[in-house]
Every structure is written in C-alpha cells, then in structure tokens.
C-alpha cells in the first residue's frame, strides 16, 4: 500500500466541486480545484465531517475489504463493545457472537482483560506524571491527530499507552498461533469498528508503527449477518450456549458515559465529546483558561463512540441498551481479575514509538524564510475581501493567503482580484447550461 496519511478518497466522477466539504472541514484540509475537491493529507485528522457533508456521496472512507479476510487461515474478531448495543432488545451479546462466527470469523475476542490491563497502565502513568497538564486520552484517534496537527505543543501530553484493542491483537495472535501451530501472519485479527477513524488508526497508527491488528470492519458490514443468523436460530428458541462474551460491566461503562472517568477520577477529569467542543476546550487550555484539568478524555463523536459514523442504531438507544446490559453484570469478575493479575507484570503496554507533531507546510525552510512567508500571507490577507466565500477554492481568505505564501495558490484565484476568475468558474460550473 502506498503512503496513506488520511482515510478518505474523493470520487472525481461524483464530485461536483460544491464546496460543502471544504467549508465544514475543521482543520482546513480540503481545497477545490477545477470543481473537484482534494485533500491536503497532512492536515486531515480523519474526523469524517466531510463524509457527512457531501451531498453526492462522493467521499468514501478507507476500509478493509471483506474479501481481504480470506488471506488468513484463522480469523479473530475483536468487536468494539458498542456493537452489543446496536441490536434490537432481546439479542444478547452471545447471539451477536454467534452472528460474527456465522459471518466467517473463527473466534470472537472478549477484550475486557485488555481494557483492564490498559486501564491499569494508564492509571500508573497518570499517577506518576509531573509534567504539564492535562494529560490527554488517546482513545479517540481523531483527537490524537488533532493534537498532532493543530496543538503540536501538547503531543507530549498524549498518554503513551497502547490501546486495548492493540493489546488484544497482540495477545490473540500470540495465543492462537501457539494453539494452532500457525505463523502469526496467518492469523487475522480484525476490529469491528464504530467509526472509520479507528480503521485508519489501524491501517496507519499515529505513532507511525505497524498495528497489531490486521484491519477493521464497520458495524454495517456485520449487522445483517448477525440478524440473519439469529432469525435462523429462532425456531430452536435456544439461548446461545457460548460462554459469556462480556464478563463484567467495566468494558461497557467505559464506552457509554463514563469514559475513563472512574479510573482517574482523583485527577480532575474532564470528558468532552463533539469535535467543535473539543477544539474550544483545547483553545481554552492554550489560553490558560482551563488550568485545573488533569485528565482530558475527548471523543470526536457527540456522545462518544456510540455516535460513530459506522454505527447502525440511534446513539441514544445504543447508550440505553448498553447501560441496561451493564446493570446486569458485575463490576469485576474473578476470571478477568486473575488474568489481569497474571498478565500485567509480564507485558509492555507503552506505545511502540512516540507520537510526534505532523510537519506543516513550508516547514523545511529556515526560520527567516518562514517569517517572510508569514509576512507574505499577512500582506495577501490584507488585500482579500474577508468574505470567506470559498470561490477561490480555499475555505477562508486567511487560508488562501497562506496558500499564496507557500506558492500553492495565486491571489488571482480570488474573484474580487481577478476578472477572469469568475469567467473560469462560470465555464466549469455552468458547462451543462451553457
């Protein structure tokens, strides 16, 4: 696979250059040239706002093709706990597991143990931290990328502990390769994901290493298989005979409303959901207005992962289903506890490489040249109308000025500064009516 720094592709046939995606992109990562949208991959944080904004379905997210799974001898599904809240009342987690097996997986992994292992590693890290606060949770890949792109001074505040699903991938490969006598490459561990951002974080982790997982499937891809499987078994009226897939409520609570709150509650915990809210909080932190936050747990989607863009059910219903499921389970169970005690001292949970800021445009130049470029951008901005109309192909006048300063655009892309620009646009956009 060639270098993939972000997770979206634009279908040039479908794209009509309508500017919708460009206008909503929170990191200004989209430009429209010749009536076609294009990404600046370095600025894209995989938030998916563009995907929802496109009126023509011209933007698609990178996913793992289902056929890709056939290259593995043994396939393990690691479902996000949110999956268990997606189905109508009466479908138990065990039935969901049956559905995943019917779909073609050989095994379904319960990662309660890994969640608890990682939770403990995070707790230790937070307790020992003496640097600047807040520490920032890395649960949501969009937040990690937002920090890399827009708040580079805070990258060292991202908690360098691996994600539970990554630890699950490592352990599943280790365990099944030993049990089945297969090479680890022959075992495919696939995450069942509520959002495309997590897919991309598996295909291309923010820290630039190779994931322990082999790909991800969105909920829609397995949803029907689960429902179909259940209806087949309905006549038997059996409850699945499988052992419980979720042994305790910790896994679920973390994915519904608590986030990591319970783990680090003594550390002035703040949970924020929704990208615009997150950006506001980060800006307030930069301005020193939020000085007393110790731990920031932020999620791109409103309401956290239940609101992911690859979910099927209504996010509030999902939350309610997961909460009622959690209420039937113990907070901790002896099997999980014993496993956590056994594994914790023997495994390394730290991130395989540090998360670094993303290099920005024009960074190769010397400081002096960068100051000159900035001055150029300021001068260009002063001559632009400040309407942010977007007709130049950049989302704001400020962005056009910046593009001009690094040589990616011309001031004459502005319809106010160039007479021919409007003519050109007319030719491109009105070609069918001419």
């Amino acid at each position: 696979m060639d270098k993939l720094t972000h997770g979206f592709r634009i279908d040039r046939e479908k794209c009509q250059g309508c500017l919708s995606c460009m206008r909503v992109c929170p990191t200004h990562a989209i430009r429209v040239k010749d009536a076609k949208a294009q990404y600046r991959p370095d600025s894209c944080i995989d938030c998916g706002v563009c995907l929802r904004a496109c009126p023509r379905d011209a933007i698609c997210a990178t996913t793992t093709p289902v056929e890709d799974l056939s290259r593995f001898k043994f396939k393990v599904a690691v479902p996000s706990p949110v999956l268990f809240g997606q189905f109508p009342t009466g479908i138990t987690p065990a039935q969901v597991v049956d559905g995943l097996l019917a779909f073609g997986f050989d095994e379904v992994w319960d990662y309660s143990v890994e969640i608890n292992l990682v939770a403990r590693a995070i707790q230790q890290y937070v307790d020992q931290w003496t640097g600047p606060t807040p520490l920032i949770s890395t649960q949501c890949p969009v937040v990690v990328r937002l920090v890399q792109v827009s708040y580079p001074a805070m990258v060292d505040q991202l908690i360098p502990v691996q994600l539970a699903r990554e630890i699950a991938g490592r352990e599943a490969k280790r365990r099944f390769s030993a049990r089945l006598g297969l090479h680890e490459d022959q075992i495919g561990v696939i995450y069942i994901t509520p959002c495309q951002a997590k897919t991309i974080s598996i295909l291309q982790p923010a820290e630039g290493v190779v994931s322990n997982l082999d790909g991800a499937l969105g909920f829609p891809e397995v949803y029907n298989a689960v429902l179909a499987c259940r209806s087949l078994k309905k006549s038997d009226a059996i409850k699945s005979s499988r052992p419980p897939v979720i042994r305790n409520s910790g896994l679920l609570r973390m994915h519904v409303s608590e986030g990591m709150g319970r783990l680090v509650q003594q550390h002035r915990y703040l949970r924020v959901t929704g990208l615009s809210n997150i950006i506001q909080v980060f800006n307030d932190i930069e301005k020193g207005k939020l000085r007393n936050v110790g731990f920031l747990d932020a999620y791109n989607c409103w309401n956290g992962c239940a609101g992911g863009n690859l979910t099927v059910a209504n996010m509030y219903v999902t939350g309610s289903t997961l909460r009622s499921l959690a209420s039937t389970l113990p907070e901790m169970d002896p099997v999980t506890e014993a496993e956590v005690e056994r594994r914790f001292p023997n495994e390394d949970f730290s991130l395989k490489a540090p998360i670094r800021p993303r290099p920005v445009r024009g960074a190769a130049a010397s400081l002096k040249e960068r100051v000159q470029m900035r001055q150029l951008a300021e001068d260009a901005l002063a001559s632009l109308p400040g309407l942010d109309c977007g007709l130049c192909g950049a989302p704001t006048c400020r962005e056009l000025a910046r593009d001009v300063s690094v040589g990616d655009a011309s001031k004459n892309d502005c319809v106010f500064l160039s007479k021919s620009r409007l003519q050109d646009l007319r030719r491109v956009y009105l070609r069918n009516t001419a």
Partner: protein
Amino acid sequence: MPEELLRKAFEIHGQDFENAGERSAEVTTILKDLDVDPNIILRVGIVAFEAEMNVVMYAGRATLTLVVTDHEIVVEVADEGPGIPDIELAMQPGYSTASDEMRDMGFGYGLGLPNIKKNSDVFSLQSEVGKGTRVLSMIRLISYG
C-alpha cells in the same frame, strides 16, 4: 549579533479577566505558524500567559512585545502599574498579594514570576513603585555548542 525577524506588540488591559489569555494565545498562534519547536512554544506560551495574567490582576495597562530573532524568542511585558516594592520577595514561590477573588479564579498563588523565570533562558525584572514593571524573558531557539 542575532538578526531580528519579527516584532509585534500587543496591548493588555488590567482587570479584563474575560479576555485574559487572548494575547498570549496570539503569541503562540504566531509561533505555531512559524513552525517553532513545540517545546519552545510551550515555554513561550507559559511566559506570555503568566506575564499577561500579572498585568490583568495587578496593573492598569501594558504592552506585550514579541520579538523573534534567528537565535531566540523574546517576550517583554512593560506595564503602567503599582510596581513591586520588594522584587526578591515577589520572586519567591508562593508569595502573593492576590485578593481572595483572584484566588477563587485559580490565580494568585504566587507562582507566576517564578514560573516565568523557570521557563526563561534569560530573565530580568525591573520595577519602580508607582511607575510600573518590566519583565523580560528570552528563550533560545538553538543551543550554542
């Protein structure tokens, strides 16, 4: 002799708690734009913020000047305020003349000036009672061999 690349001055108004932090945010935005090392930005940000807060809390009006040279970043804050009678005392961590209201807002714990000094490579503080205070902080961009 370091070459001056950029100089920008900002006005800070005393008692303007609502906009407190905005000027130092502008400073960090500029440095981010210039792709300055994030750790340097962090230090400059702390210096600018603490100095700005000192003005907001104690002084009437001040000018924050940011100077970028090819070797260093300088933040200078000169205010028309009451001045500091005992600089040595003011530099002691924990010493503060803040009111309870300021403390309620999470400020005034006597860590501002020590924090500025801690994050500076060169720090100077001049003050005259009744006239004003001038804080200068310099942070090096590169370490000399």
